[in-house]
């Protein structure tokens, strides 16, 4: 009778829990790499072990609470300490843990094996964006959240990938082992894509390694998971996995665009051109601190609109953008932005929101400054 009761209770519990744990969006995703499947299966194994222990332990507990109520006339027995039982309940959990440690060790060793990677990508965390650099390919770009601020403030309808969309995703080929080298420029960030089962801290002064081999083309979304300041919640990670030939095509296209941009450095730019480009750069890079209308949020983030220090001294202005201000939240954009972008954003800041410096900063000037 008792065993039957236990069985019924166990069955009911399982029946109640299983739709929850199997439902999509309630559990860890199985993911699209061999490693993510391995981790998912470890997760489910340890989960079911916990459920089993829970059923036994809570079963005995609630049985006792029900059966030995004083209101039903239960009288307390007088027993305590039993070496056999105590040895058993120490040894059995120990064995379960050893059994669990074996597959966990194997998976961990697999995760740490970064050898034989075909592509190396440097991932750099910055407040509050990711920068990707394809080592040996001369391609580098930053990836900023592209969800409009109006959606966040509720002035516009939130769309499907709210907070999980970027202007430029990290593009990777499928069936290729990619080594990720992670670091950061300012504070600690953490790069995570659940479906790739890759999470690794990006730490200033350190280069961490991890790797991924994606098996299915698609778009995979994640977020920064280490508190990194004000816009920590607005620093998504998006990876687009392409078939190998599509990836090659993408790579060629990016290289050509980079060459185009490099050629633009030598020519004279019009104010209107620089303003247009600058507004775009400002919106994705600067607006999160200095605000879209240049009002900033003092004292941490000074206003740029009507900022006379900046307007009166163009050299200091450019130097601040290139080298940052040490000891403050203003990072150096020397390696994040290219000369055209630096020139454009400086020009934009000097001529937007009622600022009327009227001058332009040319990309060629920036190139000279960077070479110094």
């Amino acid at each position, binding site marked *: 009778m008792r065993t039957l009761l236990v069985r019924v209770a166990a069955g009911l519990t399982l029946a109640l829990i299983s739709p929850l744990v199997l439902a999509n969006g309630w*559990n860890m995703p199985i993911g699209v790499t061999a490693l993510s499947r391995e981790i998912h299966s470890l997760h489910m194994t340890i989960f079911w072990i916990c459920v089993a222990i829970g059923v036994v332990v809570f079963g005995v507990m609630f049985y*006792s609470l029900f059966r030995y109520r004083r209101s039903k006339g239960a009288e307390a027995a007088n027993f305590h300490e039993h070496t056999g039982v105590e040895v058993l309940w120490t040894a059995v959990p120990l064995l379960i843990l050893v059994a669990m440690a074996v597959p966990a060790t194997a998976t*961990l060793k697999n995760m740490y094996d970064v050898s034989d990677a075909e592509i190396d990508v440097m991932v750099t965390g910055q407040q509050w964006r990711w920068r990707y650099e394809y080592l040996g390919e001369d391609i580098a770009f930053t990836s900023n959240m592209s969800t409009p601020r109006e959606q966040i403030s*509720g002035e516009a309808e939130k769309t499907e990938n709210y907070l999980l969309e970027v202007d430029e995703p990290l593009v990777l080929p499928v069936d290729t082992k990619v080594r990720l080298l992670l670091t950061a420029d300012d504070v600690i960030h953490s790069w995570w894509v659940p479906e790739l089962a890759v999470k690794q801290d990006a730490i200033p002064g350190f280069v961490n390694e991890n790797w991924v081999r994606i098996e299915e083309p698609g778009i995979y979304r994640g977020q920064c998971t280490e508190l990194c300041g004000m816009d920590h919640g607005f620093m998504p990670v998006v990876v687009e996995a392409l078939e190998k030939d599509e990836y090659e095509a993408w790579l060629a296209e990016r290289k050509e665009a980079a060459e185009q941009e490099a050629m633009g450095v030598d020519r004279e730019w019009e104010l209107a051109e620089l303003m247009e480009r600058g507004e775009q750069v400002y919106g994705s890079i600067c607006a999160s601190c200095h605000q879209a209308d240049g009002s900033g949020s003092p*004292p941490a983030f000074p206003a740029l609109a009507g900022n006379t220090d900046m307007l009166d001294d163009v050299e200091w202005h450019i130097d601040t953008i290139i080298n940052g201000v040490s000891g403050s939240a203003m990072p150096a954009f020397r390696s994040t932005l290219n000369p055209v972008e630096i020139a454009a954003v400086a020009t934009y800041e000097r001529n937007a929101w009622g600022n009327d410096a009227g001058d332009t900063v040319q990309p060629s000037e920036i190139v000279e400054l960077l070479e110094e």
Partner: protein
Amino acid sequence: MAFHFPKPTPEQSTTTADAGLADSHHHERPRGLMRWVLTTSHKEIGSLYLIFSLTMFFIGGIFALVVRAELFQPGLQLVEPEFFNQMTTMHGLIMVFGAVMPAFVGLANWMVPLQIGAPDMALPRLNNFSFWLLPVAFTLLLSTLFMPGGAPNFGWTFYAPLSTTYAPPSTTFFILSLHLAGISSILGAINIIATILNLRAPGMRMMDMPLFVWTWLITAFLLIAVMPVLAGVITMMLMDINFGTSFFSAAGGGDPVLFQHLFWFFGHPEVYILILPAFGIVSAIIPTFARKRLFGYASMVYATASIAILSFLVWAHHMFVVGLPLVAELFFMYATMLIAVPTGVKVFNWITTLFRGSITFEPPMLFALAFVVLFTIGGFSGLMLAIAPADFQYHDTYFVVAHFHYVLVPGAVFAIMAAVYYWLPKWTGHYPHERLSQVHFWLSVIGVNLTFFPMHFSGLAGMPRRIPDYALQFADFNMVSSLGALLYGASQLVFVLVIVMCVRGGKKAPAKAWEGAEDLEWSVPSPAPLHTFETPPNFERPVH
């Protein structure tokens, strides 16, 4: 001159305290406010600690409700991300250092001398000092909210360099306040150790001490071991911020990961500081209301000691994704899994104590039973987090938030509430109002689970911690959590009502307020007079 202790009979032992009061040779006691400022009585200082803790519990709770209100829906509605970060940070700091730790110290102040038959704490004036450091420390901490640049906003774990190079100016005040709280803890711990080792009633050996005393003894050693590490790490921060050093700044040749090693070498034992006294409380309450001796007293003591020792060997399981070498990763995974063993032993002991008991469900028992179930659920998620490869997916998500709130809220906080209900008759002379206590219990249990259970799902589905806004697929979980938090928060007003009513009146409690209670505190009258055990009781081992 040799002291002669009369051997008290049970009747006498309830009157020794009165006798002690009569022939006392005390000075005129200060009245009004100065009575509380200058008091050296362990009972009054205990009450001060508990009242302080309750106040902080509500302040920290309001911060949590601000966080939950912002997270009620996707989008930014109420607060700016900058202020949101200040709220999560202050909530954590206040709850850990201002609410839970002082509550346990308050309980130790009240109950350790009563449980070992001591007249007071060993160092009463130091006791007064260690309490009064706390209001100073936390006034300072709360004042940072009104400073330019705002309060600390880098999470309660204050990882460098976010908390150094990139921190608001108020960080220096935060460091000072944490130093003060740390000094208070160290002094309190020294006092508790001195009391337990020196002032036990004649005849009471170490292995006769109630488990609350045992767990606090071990906790006090943990405090003395790790609070200086915290002091060291925040001093290094102070130097980085104000004196141009670069302990944690990579640009100056420092090491941001060193901060995490130091912080968690303090932080992990700290976690056990927050839970070991709770084990002691539950180990007192369950035998009382099961009317049956604790199944394995000795193994409980051993398990507590094992957990304390292992707590120094597992700190880097908080750092599985910072890029540790493989060997370190394996070492900390194995060591962490080992902790599950003594923790399991504790749970098994409680349950075996219930087995074939004669069980009743008074309010302290309700909270203790909820503790066993919900703490165990927190233990299960802890076991899952110990599996290093899986932790790469869990780390810094709401799954972790669910885990540590399960061990801290229905864990530590429920144990504190159980203790309050258990010992209120001893403190006030009245039983707490039974119906209202039950209302408080059921609302709290429902509220806590509504708040924290959905966090397991949102975390597994991919929601990171400490974000002020979230993607749309997490909306339902967050809405439930926020409603649960509101319910849990509001139901604590019932708790205050019960306490106030109990202080002012209610059903009278005898010296032995609970039928199955055995320890020495139940031999003094209820309410316990200001002076107890001025003549040490002669401890007699209960015969079974």
